[in-house]
């Protein structure tokens, strides 16, 4: 049998592993600057979409990709919730408590979906308003979208930060 250089007892080893997983998850939670730029990208793209400026929509979407690239490069990890796969897992037994752990994610995604869909549903109305001379309507729509996204992202980040914070889980 291979010799081990570990003097840790099972309790300490388990705690060490759990804390490292928490640190890994904490590192994947993006900062407020990330939330700001993602929201800015969403707000701008929706605002330009409402104003039928297609080129600017694509330029705004590019902000999202640049932000994601910078975050990945900075931390080496995909930002929480933006990984192109299932992403970070948060438990040694992900299957057993999967739904329990996913409830916050689902709630956040559902709220953002409702906001996005409600704004998209009013897209035709927005165009009509704009064409009647209310030039500020696309700007207002973009601001609402951006703000809603920012609030959702910041709140979900703070939820995950609390969840994985070692101090709060001791």
């Amino acid at each position, binding site marked *: 049998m291979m010799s081990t250089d*570990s003097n840790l007892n099972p309790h300490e080893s*388990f705690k060490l*592993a759990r*804390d*490292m997983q928490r*640190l890994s998850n904490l590192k994947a939670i993006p900062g407020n600057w990330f939330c700001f730029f993602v929201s800015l990208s969403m707000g701008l793209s929706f605002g330009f979409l409402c104003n039928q400026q297609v080129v600017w929509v694509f330029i705004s979407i590019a902000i999202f990709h640049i932000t994601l690239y910078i975050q990945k490069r900075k931390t080496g990890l995909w930002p929480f919730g933006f990984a192109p796969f299932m992403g970070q897992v948060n438990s040694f037994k992900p299957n057993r408590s999967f739904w329990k752990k996913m409830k916050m994610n689902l709630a956040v995604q559902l709220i953002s979906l409702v906001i996005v869909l409600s704004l998209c549903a009013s897209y035709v109305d927005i165009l009509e308003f704009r064409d009647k001379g209310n030039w500020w309507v696309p700007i207002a729509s973009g601001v609402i979208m951006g703000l809603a996204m920012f609030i959702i992202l910041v709140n979900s980040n703070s939820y995950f930060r609390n969840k994985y914070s070692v101090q709060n889980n001791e």
Partner: protein
Amino acid sequence: MSNSSFDELIHAPIRLKICSFLSPTGSVEFPIIRDMLQVSDSVLSKHIKQLENAGYVKQRKGSAHGHKRSWVYLTTSGREAFKKHIKELQKIIEVSTDL
């Protein structure tokens, strides 16, 4: 400890930290693991090599912006072994608390 789920290779603190840090992620760059574990390049390389020899981790080498980079990730068998090891640790803790 003779139980097959208890993995002596993973149990060493630095290797346990490496596996735990990698387990929630896809792949992580070498310097990030080094900074997180606060160990030197050579120490980390040694431990990663041991895990690599056991088939638990793999390294992917590439270059970005003219610099050579190396990403480390847990293999399927590494994830399995890590999960089993943690399960075994939990069992041991449960038994010891029941006594």
